[in-house]
C-alpha cells in the first residue's frame, strides 16, 4: 500500500513539475510583455508613460482605440490601457488611480462608457490576468479584488494562460506583439471564422446599477477633477441591430448625465449603424472600424480643443 501511494505521488510530481517550470518562465515573460491585457499592467506598474492621452475602458476600449493613429493625427503621445471585461471599479482601482499616482497628469483621459461597464458579474477568466502580477507588491496594494480570484487558477500551473494549445500558442505569439500599437488589440472573438458573428444573440443587456461600480465611476470623475485632468466620456460604435437595440441606451445616458453632468461626452454608438463591414462581431469593431472610428474621434477632439 505504502509503495503504491508513494509511486502515485512521484509520478504526479514528475508529471506536473514541467508545468510549474513553464509557468515560471511564462509569468516572467508576461511581466515584460506588451500584448493586452498584460501591456496594460506593465505600462502602469513597470513603466512610466507620461502620456498626453490615456484611454481606459473595457474590451471595447481595447479593440476600438488605435493609439498610434491618435499620436499621428494629434501629434501627441497616446496609450490605450483598455482591459477586457472590466467594470468601472476594476478600472479605477487597478488602472486609473495607480496610473495617475505614478505618472505626470495626462492632458486628456478618455473613458470608454457603455452599459456593460456597469456589469458586476464578470467571469473569473478576466481576473486571471492579474495572476502573473500577484507578487508585485504595488499591484497587491490596489487589488483587494484578488481575494476572490479562483483558487484553481492559483494552484493549477499554466492554466490561466489558456486551456488548450491554441490559447498557449496565442500567448506565445503575443510575446512578439507590435509595441507600436500601444495597447490596441485587434478584436479576438471571431478569429476562427474571420467573418461577422453575433455575440450573445439571445442576450438583452439590462442596465445594472451596482452601487460599488457607480461609486468608482464617480471616483474616477472626481479624481480627474481634483487633478485638473480633462476627462472625456466616449461611447464607441455599437452594431445597431445586434447590440445597440438590445441595450437600454436612453436609460444609460440618463444615468451617465446624472453622474457626470459637467463632463464632455461623445456618442458614436450609431456611427456605423448595422454595417458589418466595420464590425468583427456585434459588440466589437474590426481593425477597419477601429481605424475609421479613431480617425473621427481624433478630429472631434481636435475640433473641440480638448487637448489644448
Amino acid at each position: 500500500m505504502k509503495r503504491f501511494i508513494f509511486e502515485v505521488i512521484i509520478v504526479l510530481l514528475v508529471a506536473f513539475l514541467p508545468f510549474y517550470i513553464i509557468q515560471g518562465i511564462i509569468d516572467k515573460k508576461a511581466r515584460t510583455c506588451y500584448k493586452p491585457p498584460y501591456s496594460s499592467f506593465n505600462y502602469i506598474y513597470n513603466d512610466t508613460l507620461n502620456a498626453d492621452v490615456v484611454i481606459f475602458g473595457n474590451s471595447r476600449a481595447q479593440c476600438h482605440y488605435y493609439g498610434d493613429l491618435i499620436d499621428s493625427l494629434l501629434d501627441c503621445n497616446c496609450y490605450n490601457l483598455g482591459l477586457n471585461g472590466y467594470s468601472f471599479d476594476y478600472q479605477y482601482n487597478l488602472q486609473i488611480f495607480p496610473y495617475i499616482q505614478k505618472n505626470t497628469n495626462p492632458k486628456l483621459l478618455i473613458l470608454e462608457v457603455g452599459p456593460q461597464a456597469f456589469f458586476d458579474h464578470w467571469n473569473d477568466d478576466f481576473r486571471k490576468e492579474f495572476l502573473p502580477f500577484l507578487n508585485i507588491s504595488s499591484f497587491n496594494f490596489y487589488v483587494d479584488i484578488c481575494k476572490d480570484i479562483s483558487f484553481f487558477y492559483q494552484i493549477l500551473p499554466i492554466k490561466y494562460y489558456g486551456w488548450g494549445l491554441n490559447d498557449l500558442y496565442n500567448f506565445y505569439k503575443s510575446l512578439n506583439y507590435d509595441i507600436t500599437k500601444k495597447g490596441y488589440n485587434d478584436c479576438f472573438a471571431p478569429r476562427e471564422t474571420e467573418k461577422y458573428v453575433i455575440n450573445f444573440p439571445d442576450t438583452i443587456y439590462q442596465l445594472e446599477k451596482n452601487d460599488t461600480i457607480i461609486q468608482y465611476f464617480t471616483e474616477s470623475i472626481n479624481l480627474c477633477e481634483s487633478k485638473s485632468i480633462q476627462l472625456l466620456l466616449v461611447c464607441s460604435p455599437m452594431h445597431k441591430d445586434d447590440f445597440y437595440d438590445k441595450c437600454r441606451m436612453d436609460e444609460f445616458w440618463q444615468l451617465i448625465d446624472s453622474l457626470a453632468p459637467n463632463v464632455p461626452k461623445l456618442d458614436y454608438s450609431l456611427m456605423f449603424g448595422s454595417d458589418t463591414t466595420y464590425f468583427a462581431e456585434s459588440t466589437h469593431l474590426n481593425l477597419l472600424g477601429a481605424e475609421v472610428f479613431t480617425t473621427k474621434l481624433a478630429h472631434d477632439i481636435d475640433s473641440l480643443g480638448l487637448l489644448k
Partner: protein
Amino acid sequence: MLFNSFEYLIFLPIVFLLYWFVFDYALRRCKHQLMLQNLFIVVASYVFYGWWDWRFLILIAITTVLSFLSGIGIEKAPTQRGKKAVMIANIAVNLGILGVYKYYDFFAREFAQLLGIESDFLLLHLILPVGISFYTFQALSYSIDVYRKQIEPCHDIVAFTAFLSFFPQLVAGPIERATNLLPQFQRKRSFDYATAVDGMRQILWGLFKKIVVADNCATYVDTVFADISNQSGSTLVLAAVLFTFQIYGDFSGYSDIAIGTAKLFGIKLMRNFNVPYFSRDIAEFWRRWHISLTTWFRDYVYIPLGGSRPALPARLEVKGDRLKARYTKCIAVRNTFIIFLLSGFWHGANWTFVLWGAYHALLFVPLLLLNKNRRYRDTVATITLPDGTIKTKWLPSLKEAGQMLLTFALAVFGWIIFRAQDISQFGEVISTICSDSLLSVPWLRNRFFYIPLAIMIAIMLLGEWISRSSNQAVLSIIKNKLSIVILEICLIACIYVFAPRELTEFIYFQF
C-alpha cells in the same frame, strides 16, 4: 460528482485511504469489519450521488429497499406463483419509477399531439435522476436472478445497498449482475498492489479518452450541431465522425475510470467495451459495444422471448422442416427488433433513439437470417495457437480492414441519428450531406485544434488496437517499466494540457 471534476480528485483519495487504512487495517480485529467497510462504501456512494441533488437519494433508497425485500419475498413465498408475483411486483414498481421519471412527459406530449390538445397541463416536468436507468436495471437483474435461483437472496442490507449504489459504476454502469458483484461485497477484500496499479492505469487511460478525445471532439461537434443549417455536407460528415469518437471516448472512458476505481477498492467489475470500432460486422460491434447493457437485454429479454431458437408451438411440431425453420426465423427477427428497439428507447424518450435501434436491427437481421451473426467471435487480426494462447498480428488483412471500415461507416451513420435532436434535424443533416457541399472543404477551426486532436484520436485508436485481445488497460500490457512511466507522465500531461475550460458531463449520465 463528475469523475473529471476537482471534487472527485479530492473525494477519491480520501475514500481510498479511509477504506484501506481505517475500515480495513485499523478494524482488522473487529468482527464487524466487513459490515463497517461496506457501510463506508454506502456512505461514500451516497455522498457521491447526492452531490448532484440529495433528493435523488430518496429514489435510489426506495429502489434498494424494494429490491432487497423482493429477494427475501421471493425466497419466502411458498409457491412458484407467489415467487413470480413478488418478482413481477418488484419489476413493475421499479419500471414504474423509471417510466414516470424518464418517459412520462414524452408519452404525455405525444398523446396530446395525437389528440391535438395542449400538453402543458399533462406534463410533470420532473428532473431525470442521474443514472436511473443503470441502477434500475441492476436492481431488476437481482430479483430476476433470485427468482431464477441463479443467486441466493441477500440478507445483508448493507452489502446489498453497497452492491446497488457502488459509486464507481452507479451513474453510468457497467450494469453489473448480482451474481458477479454482490458476492464481492459479502467477502473480505484485501489490498493488492498489482490490481491497484492496474486500476490506476485504467483510470488514466479512461481520463485520456474522456478529457482529451471526447471533450475536445465535443467542442467541434456541439458547435456544428447547434447550427446545422449553416454547415456544409463535408463539415457534417466530419462532425459525425468526431461524434463517433466522442461517444466512444466518453462512454468507454467512463467505464475505464469506473472499472479502474473499483479495482482500487478490490472490486472487479465486468468489461463494458471491447474495441467496438474494430468490429468486422454489426453483430460483432454489438458484442463489443456497451456489453453490460447488450448482455442484459440478451439474458432478460431476448432469451426469455425465445432468442434465435424459440421453442416450437405444438401445432408446428408435426409440420415440415421448412415451415419450422421459417417460424424460427420469424420469431428470431421479431425478438431482434424488440431488443434493438428497447435498447434504443432505453437511451431516452426520443424517437431518434428508437430509430437508431431500428436502424441497427435492420443491419443485424440480414446477418441473423444468413446465420452469419456469430461469424466473428474472435478478435480481429489474432491467431489462436494450439495451446490456447492468442497471438496478435500488427496489422489486419486487407479484407479485415475493409470490413472494419464498412462497419465503422455504418456505425457513424447510426450515430447521426443518435446525435440529432429530433427526426427532422436528422433529415436536415442527411439532406445537407447528400448535397454538393459534401465535396467542399470542411470547417476545421484552426490547426491548433485539428492537428493535436487527430494525433490524440490516433493515439487512442493505437492504444485500443494494441490492447484489443487483452482485458487490461493498454499501459498494463507494456512490459518495460521505464516506458510505462514515461507513457503515464505523457498521458497526465496531455490530460492536463487538453482539459477543456468547462467540465463536461458524461453523455450517458442523461440515460
